[in-house]
């Protein structure tokens, strides 16, 4: 396993893998998300209490899953960069944070829209919502640090440290609904005793969840390719500038 991971550190190998994976992953993402959304919107039952507002769940929950999943990936990449100095890990972490920030924003906005008719409020400072808002700020901080230094290496290192330190927020988000008295409901899918949600709702939820996961991979691969190009452009521009001077 470590050899496989270390072999992924080669940009040339990454390009080959990315170019092979991207076409079918894109089709798969569209297929899964399309099916999940159509199923959730049109062919799943309304909730006996919430009515049709429950359909927001089919995008809110997968977005929230991806918000934390993306951060975990980013933290692992950052640790890998700090420990083994893999440049590709640094580029990949930079590529990941706007994706994570987007999913977190979706989770917060759709959650707020869902909360207004069901809870009677757009927002509440309970442990789940607050810790996810902190996650959003961590993503923004990561993006700002990555771009803040003229020396990209320093910015990368600072951002990587932030990503690793901020990882403590992940178990807080996960267990917030158990450790504190929250308005946000407890886990219905990822539980020790298995899901409590009915299959008619679980299936479209899992399909969209998987679709969002594949979309994350597609977006990440595109953005890493882009970061590799930016790195190469920077090298050539520096060589040109020092050649002239």
């Amino acid at each position: 396993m470590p050899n496989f991971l270390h072999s992924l550190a080669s940009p040339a190998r990454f390009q080959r893998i990315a170019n092979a994976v991207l076409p079918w992953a894109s089709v798969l993402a569209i297929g899964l998300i399309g099916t999940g959304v159509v199923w959730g919107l049109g062919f799943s039952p309304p909730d006996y209490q919430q009515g049709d507002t429950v359909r927001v769940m089919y995008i809110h929950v997968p977005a929230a899953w991806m918000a934390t999943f993306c951060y975990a990936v980013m933290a692992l990449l950052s640790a890998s960069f700090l420990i083994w100095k893999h440049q590709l890990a640094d580029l990949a972490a930079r590529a990941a944070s706007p994706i994570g920030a987007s999913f977190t924003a979706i989770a917060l906005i759709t959650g707020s829209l869902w909360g207004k008719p069901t809870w009677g409020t757009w927002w509440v400072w309970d442990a789940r919502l607050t810790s996810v808002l902190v996650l959003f700020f961590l993503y923004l901080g990561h993006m700002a640090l990555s771009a803040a230094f003229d020396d990209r290496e320093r910015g990368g290192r600072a951002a990587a440290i932030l990503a690793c330190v901020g990882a403590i927020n992940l178990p807080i988000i996960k267990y917030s609904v158990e450790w504190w008295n929250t308005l946000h409901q407890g886990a219905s899918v990822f539980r020790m005793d298995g899901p409590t949600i009915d299959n008619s709702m679980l299936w479209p939820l899992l399909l969209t969840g998987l679709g969002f996961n594949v979309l994350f991979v597609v977006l990440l691969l595109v953005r890493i390719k882009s970061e590799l190009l930016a790195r190469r452009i920077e090298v050539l521009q520096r060589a040109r500038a020092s050649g002239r001077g």
Partner: protein
Amino acid sequence: MEAVSTFLDMGGYAATVWPAYGVTAAILIGLLVASLRTLSRRKAELAVLEAQRERPRR
């Protein structure tokens, strides 16, 4: 037609459901488009720089 308007009404919760799906689509499609455009812009920039490198300037 009535089935369509019933569907769009979302049991009276149209103002909750459709903006939620709309915002999600806007953000995800926006991110994808922005990422692809940056990728092609950088490809073009790199092509120019590499061509200049091959042609030594007097």
